[in-house]
């Protein structure tokens, strides 16, 4: 309603940006919480091994521990790049 509003640049709604960033990071951190401490290390080493053979993205390897009734299941998933698979760097 302010008649002078058009004269100044409207500041961005940074509260919305904060909310969206937090939603993502909090969901991500909650997903990894409670898992064994070795998971990030395991994930890093697996990634290094896979990358010796296939050139995958750093976030292509997912390691999760899921509870299935009485026992826990270590779940690994590796997303391979699209297109013909090429060996990485001739290593």
């Amino acid at each position: 309603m302010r008649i002078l509003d058009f004269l100044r640049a409207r500041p961005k709604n940074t509260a919305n940006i904060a909310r969206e960033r937090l939603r993502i990071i909090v969901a991500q951190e909650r997903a990894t919480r409670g898992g064994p401490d070795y998971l990030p290390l395991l994930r890093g080493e697996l990634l290094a091994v896979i990358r010796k053979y296939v050139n995958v993205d750093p976030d292509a390897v997912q390691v999760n521990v899921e509870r299935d009734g009485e026992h826990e299941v270590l779940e690994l998933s590796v997303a391979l790049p699209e297109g013909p698979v090429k060996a990485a760097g001739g290593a």
Partner: protein
Amino acid sequence: MTEIIVVTSGKGGVGKTTSSASLATGLARRGYKVAVIDFDVGLRNLDLIMGCERRVVYDFVNVIHNEATLKQALIRDKRFDNLYVLAASQTRDKDALTQEGVGRVLDELAADGFDFVICDSPAGIEKGAHLAMYFADRAVVVVNPEVSSVRDSDRILGLLSSKTRRAERGDGPMKQHLLLTRYNPVRVEAGEMMSVKDVEEILGIPVLGVIPESEQVLAASNSGVPVIHDAGSIAGQAYADSVARLDGDDVELRFIDAPKKGFFKRMFGT
């Protein structure tokens, strides 16, 4: 039955000690026998906020190490004789606290007929913070509407549900309350600050209270009188409302909307 409430946050400087002082004072004003304990060993401050810094002779660590009795170390509040402060040690480090010792002090307070024990947690997630939350029945998580505070609080929520006696015993989830401090409704309305609803949704715990940003909070800590005593300040009133909710009353949130602007201001801005 003694109820142990931890006031925690993860991040420093969000208002844990200010909140502990006002919640403890408010519960005492409602007639309960209350002890408030400073777990920030090495960086004691609760005594300053409560205005009893010159009456500290023995502290929490002295009691834990059997250098003083609990009776000697508890400092009676100037205004309410059913409110006591247990100061942290200035000279020892955080390793001076032990789980066994903290448990023993809490048991003794329970045997003395205390209704509430408020544990004022240090910042961080190390030993002092861990021991402040370990024996708690309920948690008040103090949050500023700001990204790092919200994220750290979520980390604390994770610890509350895994690293406490309740969690270890499988006694079911601890009751957790969100206390939003330094809230500025004008900035929320302008889209510069996350709203109560935003923070509540991200963290997923119910709101105990919203304390508006207020000059009276600094004035209160300057003079060593918990801000809840200042009935004329909106922060004091908001703390009183929070205490009522903590005690089970159904009180509507206040001071969360920006004041309505008059016709002149709406036309010409501020």
